[in-house]
């Protein structure tokens, strides 16, 4: 338990200056959206597809006011409510797709890297081809296919995101496995008679899984953008099923010509803030967990009193 806690604060204690600031800012931004997502029913003034209250219809494309802080859109929806509910949709999609990525990508990479041979070659070839392909186009093709099968649901969109990120998990895990399986401790484990499954589960897994949090956070940022992009093209989730920022922006674009800014500005800002938060978080984690990028906090060498920041130039 203590070790776990220590591991959690490690990124903070081992960073200084800009890196720490980035990490904290990212954490705060992300936390705000996670809170919005979890408590959407209590935080949002109205439902995401609610266009009237007590039988009275909301005004259409009304500017921000006391009743509707962020205004209303052309479907009579309350923009603030849709922004808050949108956080829930985004979180759902991201969590499902990343969990699927880990559940499929990590074992695949482990097995492929551990056994090698023709299975490894074929998998690497397929994953490389998928990786070389423009990821957004891949997402479009998969969502074209999956929404045909499952309708425009959260699950279908999550699965198309999974398809585009799996190659990254596969690559990272496979490459770490390939180098880790030659390590002395693995050899030692084999010498005392550990089977393949045991070696993979107990010795390699812990090693390999370390790069996943950084990858997951950075992918989450990208996934938010891809989800919004699909929504913008009308290939994602339908607006009556869930609030989705990208799809709301598509409707907002039609009003841009007449100077209506509130229908697009708020969902757009929500995307920017969440993606920025996740990116900062991922970069911050990367700088602390990745030893080649880490710049440790150095103690002042000069005897006179100085800020920690001024010592950063040390090698």
């Amino acid at each position, binding site marked *: 338990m203590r070790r776990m806690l220590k591991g959690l604060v490690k990124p903070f204690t081992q960073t200084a*200056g*800009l890196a720490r600031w980035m990490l904290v800012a990212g954490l705060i931004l992300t936390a705000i959206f996670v809170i919005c997502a979890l408590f959407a029913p209590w935080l949002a003034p109205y439902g995401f597809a609610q266009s009237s209250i007590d039988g009275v219809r909301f005004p259409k494309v009304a500017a921000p006011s006391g009743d509707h802080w962020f205004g209303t859109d052309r479907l009579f929806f309350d923009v603030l409510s849709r922004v808050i509910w949108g956080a829930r949709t985004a979180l759902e999609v991201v969590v499902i797709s990343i969990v699927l990525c880990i559940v499929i990508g990590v074992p695949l990479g482990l097995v492929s890297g551990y056994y090698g041979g023709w299975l490894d070659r074929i998998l690497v*070839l*397929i994953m*490389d*081809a*998928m990786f*070389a*392909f*423009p*990821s*957004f*186009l891949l997402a*479009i*093709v*998969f969502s*074209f*296919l999956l929404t*045909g*099968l499952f309708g425009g649901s959260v699950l279908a969109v999550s699965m198309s995101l999974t398809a585009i990120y799996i190659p990254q998990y596969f690559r990272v895990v496979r490459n770490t496995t390939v180098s880790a399986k030659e390590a002395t401790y693995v050899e030692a484990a084999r010498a005392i008679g550990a089977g393949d499954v045991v070696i993979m589960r107990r010795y390699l897994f812990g090693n390999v899984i370390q790069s996943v949090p950084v990858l997951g956070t950075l992918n989450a*940022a990208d996934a938010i*953008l891809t989800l*919004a*992009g699909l929504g*913008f*093209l*009308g*290939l994602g989730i339908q607006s009556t099923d869930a609030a989705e920022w*990208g799809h709301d*922006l*598509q409707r*907002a*674009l039609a009003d*841009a*010509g007449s*100077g209506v*800014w509130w229908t*697009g*500005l708020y969902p*757009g800002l929500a*995307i*920017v803030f969440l*993606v*920025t938060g996740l*990116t*900062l978080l991922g970069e911050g984690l990367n700088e602390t967990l990745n030893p080649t990028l880490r710049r440790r906090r150095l103690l002042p060498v000069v005897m006179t009193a100085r800020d920690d920041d001024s010592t*950063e130039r040390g090698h």
Partner: protein
Amino acid sequence: MSRAGSGSLPRYVAQRALLVIPMIWVILTLVFLVLRVAPGDPVSAALGDKLDEHQLDLRREALGFNKPLIVQYWEYVSAVARLDFGTTYSDNQSVLDVVRDNGGATLSLTLSAFVVALLVGIPLGLIAGRYRDSFPDVLIRLFGILSYAAPIFFVGFLLQIYVAKPLGLPTSGASSPITAFTVQPHTHILLVDAFLSGDGTAIVDVLKHLLLPAVTLGLLICGVFIRLVRVNILQTMQSDYVEAAEARGIDRIKVTWRHAFRNALVPVITVIGLQFALLLGGAVLTEATFNWPGLGQKLVKYINLRDYGAVQGIVTIFAIAVVLISLLVDIVNALIDPRVRY
């Protein structure tokens, strides 16, 4: 990683070109697997509400859907080898014609976006890297993150409201109808055609239409260039030869310019190739935002029509374009940097 041995340029090019074939083959197979083997009937998806059951059967037969999968696969791959990318199901056009008519618009959009990205990204990256951890560095890095975090259509939305409206810039299409009517299509690239016609107003009109979409798409990838140039500057500034030059007492600005900047720019060329994939995806969204008559918008149109034939053909062409561009970039790289060849 390959041990070419001699390290001569022609040999490297030949080896690299040979690798293109299996790469394209794998991607073709993937496209086929995803679009053909997956359940769902393309013909009734595209035409189900227009034709009756008998006519649908005839269409299926004409398109070869009654044949075994392996035969369909062979026909698809060999057709692509003959540069036949099939026809669209919904309006029975040759995919190659669709690409010819719309590819030019996508090409001019992506190329001008590259120019914007390089013009913005490289100077900012150089400044950020040269003055690490200073205020400009923090600002520029934040800008880099924001330019990536802001979705294309949101940037486009903001530009349309806060820039295009006050300045009276066009936000839809590649030209005004008059220009499209007067300029003769020679190359199917409107900008080139406008220049060929020598008509001043047409050129200005086309450039005006191009401005906002190019800026929108360019901002998306300029963040990548900022980061890359910045990191490279940091690395080269720490390298021994820069230190040696400094130790000899050469002026700091001269060192930065002649030794650090130049070498830091080499990897940019590699990354340009990698960014092409991102750019193609971004182009789809930019085209939808600005109603740009390019290939991406066609793709979205055919997807909404559930036209498997068109989607398969366009995606195949996109895939081949990506692979060929990466080949081109590798060759250019080998020309510039001799280390690559070995």
